[in-house]
């Protein structure tokens, strides 16, 4: 490159003068400015990554059709659930799995393997800012999709407004927090970007089969259903569905919240203990 480009301007005007009190330096305080800068870069990257964008944006929409088909085949009689109140929570579940969980495992692993995470840690951003900001674009997409799909679905399937919007909100917020942390935990156990497609499979399969995304647990045998209620996404699906069906009792609601929070904390603990900031070499 052209060496005369400007190597000779004053570089560090404040070098000697700056021996005063430390700049910034308040520990434990999140900086919105830093989060915004990181999230903006991450959004740019997501938009440029075609396959990630497809998974995040289109897959949940496309799968909604098959969702409806599978729900229509299930025998819902006596469950108090209609096709509409089965499909709507399923769509949110799909969004959480694809737009949030799957996307974020890829993001965390890719940034780690590119040494971006390590480089960022040499700067001022703290660990929570780095991981949180990287998740923001996917979370924003997930939220927007949920709103669009729920509104559209409610109109098309003739479901109407939820009677318990608080449960809907709790389900979406808890689901997003849980999926973000589970994604970081999965990334901790994923060695390479290629393997990310494999390490996301267990949770995806377990969720789609056992958490009532495609088929409500109400049609399962009781013992199996009881076990499935302990899976990470099941309480989220129950909360979401009850926003319309209002089937969850007060105790049932607490139980769902507890299971969801438990999984979220377990994921957070795994991240704290096991998350790697640079590749194994």
């Amino acid at each position, binding site marked *: 490159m052209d060496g005369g*480009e400007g*190597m000779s301007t004053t570089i560090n005007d404040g070098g000697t003068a700056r021996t005063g009190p430390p700049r910034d330096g308040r520990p434990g305080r999140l900086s919105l400015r830093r989060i915004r800068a990181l999230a903006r870069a991450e959004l740019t990257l997501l938009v440029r990554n075609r396959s990630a964008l497809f998974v995040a944006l289109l897959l949940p929409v496309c799968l909604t059709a098959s969702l409806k088909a599978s729900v229509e085949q299930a025998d819902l009689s006596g469950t108090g659930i209609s096709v509409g109140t089965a499909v709507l929570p399923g769509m949110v579940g799909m969004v959480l799995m694809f737009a949030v969980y799957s996307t974020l495992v890829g993001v965390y692993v890719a940034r780690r393997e590119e040494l971006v995470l390590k480089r960022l840690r*040499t700067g001022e951003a703290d660990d929570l800012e780095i991981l949180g900001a990287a998740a923001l674009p996917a979370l924003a997409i997930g939220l927007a999709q949920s709103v669009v799909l729920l509104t559209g679905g409610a109109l098309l399937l003739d479901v109407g407004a939820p009677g318990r919007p608080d449960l809907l909100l709790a389900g979406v917020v808890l689901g997003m927090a849980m999926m973000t942390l589970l994604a970081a935990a999965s990334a901790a156990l994923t060695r390479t970007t290629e393997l990310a497609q494999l390490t996301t499979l267990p949770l995806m399969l377990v969720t789609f089969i056992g958490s009532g995304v495609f088929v409500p647990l109400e049609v399962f045998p009781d013992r199996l259903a009881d076990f499935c209620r302990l899976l990470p996404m099941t309480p989220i699906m129950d909360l979401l569905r009850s926003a319309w069906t209002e089937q969850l009792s007060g105790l049932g609601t607490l139980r769902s919240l507890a299971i969801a929070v438990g999984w979220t904390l377990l994921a957070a603990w795994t991240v704290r203990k096991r998350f790697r900031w640079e590749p194994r070499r």
Partner: protein
Amino acid sequence: MEGMDAIEVEGLRRRYEAADGGTRRGNGGSQGGFEAVRDVSFSVREGEIFALLGTNGAGKTSTVEVLEGLARPTAGTVRVLGFDPFTERSYVRPRTGVMLQEGGFPSELTVEETATMWAGVTSEARPPREALEIVGLGARTQVRVKQLSGGERRRLDLALALIGRPEVLFLDEPTTGMDPEGRRDTAELVRQLRAEGTTVLLTTHYLEEAEQLADRLAIMQAGRIVGSGTPEQVVAERPSRITFRLPPGTEARELPLTVQAAVEGRRVSVRTHDLQPVLTELLVWAREAGVTLENLQARSASLEEAFLEIAQAGNRRDGEPKGSKGPKGPKGPRRNAWTGAKA
């Protein structure tokens, strides 16, 4: 001893866990893991350029990573501007700039987007474009990182390290992969930063670079510091060297030398602390005997020679006394500490 120490390292040790806990895998020694840094102490004064030299796997990067606050020391203490860079990172980070051995940038961002992101996480950052212009990337702002050459990536990394106007700058092999011009520009930049009061700790493979730039330096070998001082001090104790081919029909013992010469085939190598008189002696003899000394070379010790000699001596010292370590591998200064490839 004017000014205070910007960097203090006291009895630093760093061990990589064997199985899972550490960042890299060890050699599975008796205690598990691999000790990459073994009792290292040094200090860097404010406004000084300090170079850490060593072969691959000597422990330079392992040491610098602790100073950068990326890793906790296994033992010993480290202070940067008076703070612990790991536990008090929020006090240290706004005042330091770091260039890792290998830059970590998303390959799909452009140069300018990368700098903008970095400015966004840095307090009192200079404008991104200004930082890019300082390192000569002003014309490449719209290029994606993946399309940059290795040298350009190093320049980008340097720009980010400078973006917060750091008081202390860590440069881990800043010129690796740069062309000669890039290396010259970087050296010039580092000198200018020093003139403006910045403290610089750098590691490098290029010994001339260290010789020209560093106020003081330390040579690392197998996790220890085996030599240190100003470049002049480190070089001063080393002998100069004269080499030439033995003229046909001459035996080595006929040479007029008062100092010992090593003869290898027809090649003669003389090491002396009195280069001029010995050389004179040799040249006068050659004229009187009417012979030509082919391939005659005479040179003062360079940092490179000093380095190789110290490093090799360090190798020998390191190898023998520790019975517990098992046999040394088939040698050479290239032993890889990361993979722990030792035997």
